[in-house]
């Protein structure tokens, strides 16, 4: 028997399994208070998924507000936080939309499908804004490279991302692969998608206009990802569902359908047949209907039995919470329905009118609108949608600086033994170049299509990925993601700023002007005050950094509970920066180009090894302070890199980060297939000059006859510059110290991942 609204009214004392659905006593109490009765099982399912941490941001909300309250003034921001993805004006009548999301836990359970559906989900967010998705980046974190479980998880994740993105025809243009024991059992699979649209063609998730139809199109709805809600189906009032007790919480993707869905949706947008649109992601129809209704006129009626099902035996609560992939929900004017359905037919995409937008009076609007859902004519949901979508609980979780933080910071890396002889310096360079975190990621990235659609101007292993937006003018966007969990562990405020600074620097190094930020905050349990402190500090740092650099945060994602038992992952804010190039033919690549070009080091090098790759991979040490943050220096450096690129001055530019100068030289030599001869700054210990991870630095190369121009620029921008040497030869040579032939370097840099994961 179906638990109808009337039945719920008559049976107030039925015991409901709210705790099994993750609702706390007081949360359940609030639902009863909102409704003035007990919820039906469908309503309970909706509230429980929508009020989960994942959908309601109940632990993070109070902190994330800073991204809005501290947002810098920006002419570029067209749509900010709160929509499916932020949108920025990139000039020439175009806008770009981008966002990063996590699919961490599903990727641990089922690496291929978890990662694949992670890509699918973020791509639909971008599509929902009215944009054509144009590229993917994939920041990844795994346990130790040689751990057995990493051998299970990494190849599956990489194949899943490639399998999905390649099949969608989206180039993957950047990302990260980082290993650390803290990610054992908690791999991080983040995915960023960027899309492009005309600036006057933005779509919003709004169900306005009473009488307009609600159309669900795309995949049929099955029992995907409803693990939690199965508690309900087996509870007494849905006893007819008894046989379906075993339900998968794993979602399976169909990238082919998503590709068709993209083309179909773009044609629908093009013909202006869509009043409002929402993708179906976490919480499925529960989320799409309540968000559309509460952002629109407030009223909606859904006939749930009209939803095309994969399994006929599905119960209404399952239909409402199913996370089946590749589905979209559109609001369409009645006169356009026929044409809408015809376009779906052209693309062989299933579509069904499942309801309509309704009128609500001011009183109903004031209590949050009205969403009614029927199942074969019986009323199973009657709720104010705003209370489901936006008025969930908000927690001020307690936070406390970890007791060990002082000890950790006091454990400075100075006591670690440093390489000093020529042989030691040389072998340290080779060891780092081949370490899992700094080695070539070619084994991973070769599994990703980088060429499709023919607009990829730069892709991995470049500092930033660059995509051409307009073939006639050369307008393009650049993107980079960064995040260093070790730095953030040592100082979450600084760590978040360093992540921001590095992504910003990477974008600027490619020649692009940074414009906006997205972020994915990967942390342990918010119920642990020490984790909550890391989170609060990181958000505070990121918001302050964005204000300083003049970049609005346009959206992002929070992933909590990345922990096994007591051990949380390294706090890992991953920051994505989007920039603009007015003409992509002026982009600056990282590879050295021509013998005789002068090499300059820009920025200041200090003795900074806290949280460094050297301390980690040579000594297994994590302690001290991360490199100091100097956002003014970052701004100056970026200004210089952008101006020099516009002027066509730079032959190459590469930012310095993990592994310091040595690693940057390795990468520029190997990318360009040409060596270099450099002389270290005399006033620095050679080890510090080579391996320090001071921020706000880059190496650039330039034709010999333009050196003076560069020096003038540096003076004007206030960027310290030192001539290191020149490009040429078949070795990376540090004059007076050592030389490494490129072949030897390449072997060290490229062998690591294949030897761990191939075969």
């Amino acid at each position: 028997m179906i638990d109808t609204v009337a039945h719920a009214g008559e049976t107030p004392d039925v015991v409901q399994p709210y705790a099994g659905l993750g609702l706390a006593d007081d949360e359940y109490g609030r639902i009863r208070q909102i409704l003035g009765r007990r919820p039906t099982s469908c309503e309970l399912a909706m509230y429980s998924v929508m009020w989960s941490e994942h959908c309601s941001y109940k632990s993070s909300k109070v902190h994330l507000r800073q991204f809005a309250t501290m947002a810098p003034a920006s002419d570029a921001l067209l749509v900010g936080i709160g929509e499916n993805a932020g949108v920025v004006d990139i000039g020439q009548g175009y806008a770009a939309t981008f966002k990063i999301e996590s699919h961490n836990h599903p990727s641990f359970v089922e690496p291929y499908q978890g990662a694949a559906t992670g890509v699918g989900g973020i791509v639909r967010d971008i599509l929902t804004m009215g944009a054509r998705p144009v590229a993917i980046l994939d920041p990844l974190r795994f346990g130790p490279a040689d751990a057995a479980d990493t051998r299970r998880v990494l190849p599956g994740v990489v194949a899943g991302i490639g399998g999905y993105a390649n099949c969608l025809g989206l180039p993957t243009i950047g990302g990260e692969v980082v290993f650390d024991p803290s990610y054992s059992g908690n791999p991080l699979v983040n995915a960023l998608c960027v899309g492009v649209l005309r600036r006057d063609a933005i779509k919003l998730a709004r169900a306005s206009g009473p009488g307009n139809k609600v159309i669900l199109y795309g995949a049929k709805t099955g029992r995907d990802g409803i693990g939690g809600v199965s508690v309900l189906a087996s509870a007494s009032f849905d006893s007819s569902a008894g046989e379906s007790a075993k339900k998968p919480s794993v979602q399976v993707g169909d990238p082919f359908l998503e590709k068709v869905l993209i083309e179909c949706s773009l044609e629908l947008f093009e013909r202006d047949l869509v009043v409002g649109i929402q993708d179906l992601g976490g919480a499925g129809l529960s989320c799409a209907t309540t968000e559309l209704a509460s952002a629109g006129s407030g009223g909606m009626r859904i006939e749930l039995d009209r939803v095309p099902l994969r399994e006929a035996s599905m119960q209404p609560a399952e239909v409402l919470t199913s996370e089946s992939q590749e589905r979209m929900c559109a609001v369409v004017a009645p006169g356009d329905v026929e044409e809408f359905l015809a376009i779906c037919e052209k693309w062989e995409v299933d579509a069904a009118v499942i309801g309509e937008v309704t009128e609500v009076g001011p009183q109903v609007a004031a209590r949050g609108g009205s969403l009614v859902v029927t199942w074969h004519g019986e009323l199973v949901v009657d709720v104010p949608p705003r209370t489901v979508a936006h008025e969930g609980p908000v927690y001020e979780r307690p936070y406390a600086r970890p007791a060990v933080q002082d000890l950790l910071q006091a454990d400075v890396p100075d006591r670690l033994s440093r390489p000093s002889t020529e042989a030691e310096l040389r072998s340290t360079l080779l060891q780092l170049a081949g370490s899992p975190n700094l080695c070539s990621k070619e084994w991973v990235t070769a599994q990703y299509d980088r060429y499709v659609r023919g607009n990829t101007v730069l892709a991995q292993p470049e500092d930033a990925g660059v995509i051409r937006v307009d073939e006639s003018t050369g307008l393009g966007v650049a993107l980079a993601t960064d995040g260093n969990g070790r730095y953030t562990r040592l100082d979450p405020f600084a760590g978040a700023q360093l992540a921001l600074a590095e992504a910003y620097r990477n974008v600027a190094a490619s020649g692009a002007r940074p414009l906006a930020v997205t972020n994915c905050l990967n942390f342990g349990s918010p119920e642990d005050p020490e984790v909550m402190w890391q989170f609060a500090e990181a958000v505070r740092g990121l918001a302050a950094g964005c204000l300083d650099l003049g970049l609005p945060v346009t959206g992002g994602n929070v992933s909590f509970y990345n922990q096994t038992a007591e051990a949380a992952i390294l706090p890992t804010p991953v920051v994505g920066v989007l920039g603009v190039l007015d003409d992509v033919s002026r982009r600056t690549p990282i590879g050295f180009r021509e013998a005789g070009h002068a090499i300059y080091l820009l920025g200041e090098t200090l003795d900074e090894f806290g949280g460094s790759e050297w301390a980690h991979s040579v000594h297994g040490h994590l302690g001290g302070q991360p490199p100091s943050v100097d956002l003014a220096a970052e701004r100056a450096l970026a200004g210089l890199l952008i101006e020099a690129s516009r002027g066509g001055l730079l032959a190459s530019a590469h930012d310095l980060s993990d592994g310091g100068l040595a690693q940057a030289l390795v990468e520029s030599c190997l990318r360009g297939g040409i060596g270099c001869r450099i002389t270290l700054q005399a006033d620095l210990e050679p080890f510090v000059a080579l391996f320090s991870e001071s921020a706000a630095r880059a190496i650039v190369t330039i034709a010999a006859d333009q050196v003076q121009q560069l020096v003038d620029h540096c003076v004007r921008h206030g960027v310290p510059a030192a001539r290191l040497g020149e490009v040429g030869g078949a070795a990376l040579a540090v004059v007076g110290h050592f030389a490494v032939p490129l072949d030897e370097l390449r072997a060290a840099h490229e062998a690591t991942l294949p030897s761990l994961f191939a075969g």
Partner: protein
Amino acid sequence: MARVVVDVMLKPEILDAQGQAIQRALGRLGFDRVQSVRQGKRFEIELDADLDDPGLAQVKEMAERLLANTVIEDFEVRSLP
């Protein structure tokens, strides 16, 4: 020498996008009495062992650990004559 077959199929509740695509293609080819298609994998294994109980148990273990992804797939082991 024993010959064993391991059939691996997606669990019934898991989306079989491939099977659905094939079903539609068969429909377009005029095979309109096809009600459903599901695609799985078939492994033919030759073992240097007798197919006594321990032998079969070994194959089960292979299926469990490697051939099937038991999060989303079911399997069946059969011996061939």
